[in-house]
């Protein structure tokens, strides 16, 4: 069983990393031939970094759009960030100071993450417009995240697993040393679901995470009059003339 999970994890990580890098490479390699920032837009690179930071950290545009979606979405994402960082303790020895510091917050973030996810799902289920645009995969994605969160919370608050052994297993994995994984059903479920998430990531709407950084309406500087912007394929049109 430990071996099976090891193979699964290696494969999932491979798919995740290669798939994601490949996707990012495609985005980066695809030209943006025209200046299309949604204005008013920053006129300097520094300004663009700030705009992007506000977008990624505070979900500025979503805030303008809809407070319910924003609050649930932000709660979920912020909690997810904390929870993920907290999980670094299972991959580092000794545990980094700041990881140890956020540990208690990370635990409660599991609860707020669940709240956020449920809020988003309620919206998807009961707001007519959002239900209309939802595909089965949209619901399944929420279900997957909720299942990961719930299985994690159960291990935290109800049926503890042997975290020392789990940590040993993952530290081992990182050194290509397959150790024994506690055969605990909840843990198995949790890990299975996480590998699923990793595999699905590069092929699904989760690509919004890298995508936002490549969005021309957000990442372009508003200086078209001051500097000539020309993509390679557009430049060719001029040389053919």
């Amino acid at each position: 069983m430990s071996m099976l999970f090891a193979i699964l994890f290696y494969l999932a990580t491979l798919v995740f990393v290669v798939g994601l890098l490949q996707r990012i490479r495609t985005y980066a390699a695809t030209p943006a031939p025209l200046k299309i920032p949604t204005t008013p837009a920053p006129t300097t690179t520094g300004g663009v970094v700030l705009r992007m930071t506000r977008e990624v950290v505070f979900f500025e545009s979503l805030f303008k759009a809809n407070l319910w979606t924003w609050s649930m979405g932000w709660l979920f994402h912020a909690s997810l960030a904390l929870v993920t960082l907290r999980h670094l303790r299972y991959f580092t020895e000794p545990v980094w100071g700041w990881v140890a510091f956020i540990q208690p917050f990370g635990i409660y973030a599991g609860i707020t993450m669940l709240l956020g996810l449920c809020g988003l799902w309620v919206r998807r289920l009961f707001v007519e417009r959002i239900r209309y645009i939802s595909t089965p995969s949209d619901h399944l994605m929420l279900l997957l995240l909720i299942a990961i969160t719930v299985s994690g919370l159960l291990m935290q608050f109800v049926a503890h697993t042997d975290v020392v052994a789990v940590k040993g297993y993952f530290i081992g994995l990182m050194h290509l040393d397959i150790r024994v994984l506690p055969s605990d059903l909840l843990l198995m479920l949790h890990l299975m679901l996480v590998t699923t998430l990793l595999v699905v990531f590069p092929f699904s709407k989760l690509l919004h995470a890298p995508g936002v950084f490549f969005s021309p309406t957000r990442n372009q500087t508003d200086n078209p009059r001051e500097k000539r912007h020309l993509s390679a394929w557009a430049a060719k049109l001029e040389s053919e003339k």
Partner: protein
Amino acid sequence: MADITAPAYRIIPIVPALKPDAMAGKGPFVASDKINEAIGFPGQLVEDWHDKAIAKMGELLSKYRSLKVYMDACVHCGACSDKCHYFIGTQDPKNMPVARQDLMRSVYRRYFTLPGKLFPKLVGARDLTREVLDEWYNYFNQCSECRRCSVFCPYGIDTAEVTMAAREILDSIGYGQKYSNEIIGKVHKIGNNLGLPGPALIDTLEGLEEDVKEATGIDVRFPIDVKGAEVLLITPSADFFAEPHIDSLIGYAKVFHATGTSWTLSSMASEAGNFGMFIGNYDQLRKIALRIREAALELGVKRIVVGECGHAWRVAYSFWNTLSGVGDGAGEVDRFAQMLQKQLDHRYKQPTHICEFTWDAIERNALTFDKAKNDKHIITFHDSCNVARGSRMGDLPGGQFEIPRNIIKAVASNFVEMSPETTREQTFCCGGGGGLLTDDLLDLRVKGALPRMEVLQQVVDEHGVNFMATICAICKAQFTKVMPIYGFDRRMVGGVHQLVSNAIILGEEK
């Protein structure tokens, strides 16, 4: 068309309930063989349209990062779902920006992603059938590319980019829209969207000189094709032809007169509008823009000023430097752009919006006004979508909002803002932009104007507003047409330079 009526105002602007297929149909008139072939598109739907369309989609995905990222990034959060004026006015769920994008995204998933190839039902992927294609034609011609949705999307997904791609694909297989394609043909052939030939243009301009002389006693000139003029004015051809557009043209001429600017129009480049953008076709966009470059080079002008036209200002401000070199900052070895940029005077922004030109003159105290001439007006300002969300004026972000307002306040005493959720970057499209300003879409246009009409009604009721100024030829034409259907006087709409024209003092009669 007499049976087209305005939808009722919402009591409080709540999100409307869905009315599926409320706007299902055939869409606007399809372009004829003659119209399509004149601009290099297949005359009618080609036999292997399916394969051609998918191939074109693949090509566009590799040429436009926007399209590529936007096809992947949407999470169906619904932030945009209640932001489109056409959705608000029609309640058709396919007019929600996300649903409109999904018309294409579903096909993208089917042909370009692994999950869509393996589990189409699960991820909402669809084959490109004839029904889907017809749906594209109908609903991608119900988007005015106003970008309001892109303001609210957490990933900045711009439905305009998707609509442009869809129309580009449709054109490439011979399924183009009559209104836009016919107009593009006229620009190439005659030099402007109207098809106004040189002699008619000259006759119109001479008539204007007479009119202004009669009204003011001053010889204000409307020069055309003058070599060596300092300023080349590029303005929408509607300014030569339609009401109230022409009053703003008179306003520009008076500003040039009062500032002692030598200026000229061009009979070759007698159009600011560029419908190449509406159909998402880079070649057309570029070819139309190159007419202006050619005119500028030929006339040897130092500055290029653009008249009141919303999408034209987006193209001029954001794209001209890329397309034709009208701008600054080309590389040393960029001979194509340098050829023009060496000629232009870079103490000024190139291109300059007429509002920037006028506001600059006002700030220099080069213009004087008799504000009382506008006292009969209680004025509000409608931000035009392309100016608001696809361009800038002046040095600071948001100058496109401040400068026109500053001008109005400088030439008139009574100015009132409409509700802030509907102005500046959150402004609503007039309902006729993006190549939809055609009589066969009048029902859609009337419905799309609903959110603007609602807030206009508010300021009419509360402040007695009787004039809505705007700086876009499409807005002017659209409002003139649809406002009477909402019970407003069509003369309530006009240009910012119409107000300038009313109040400007030109000096003593000679």
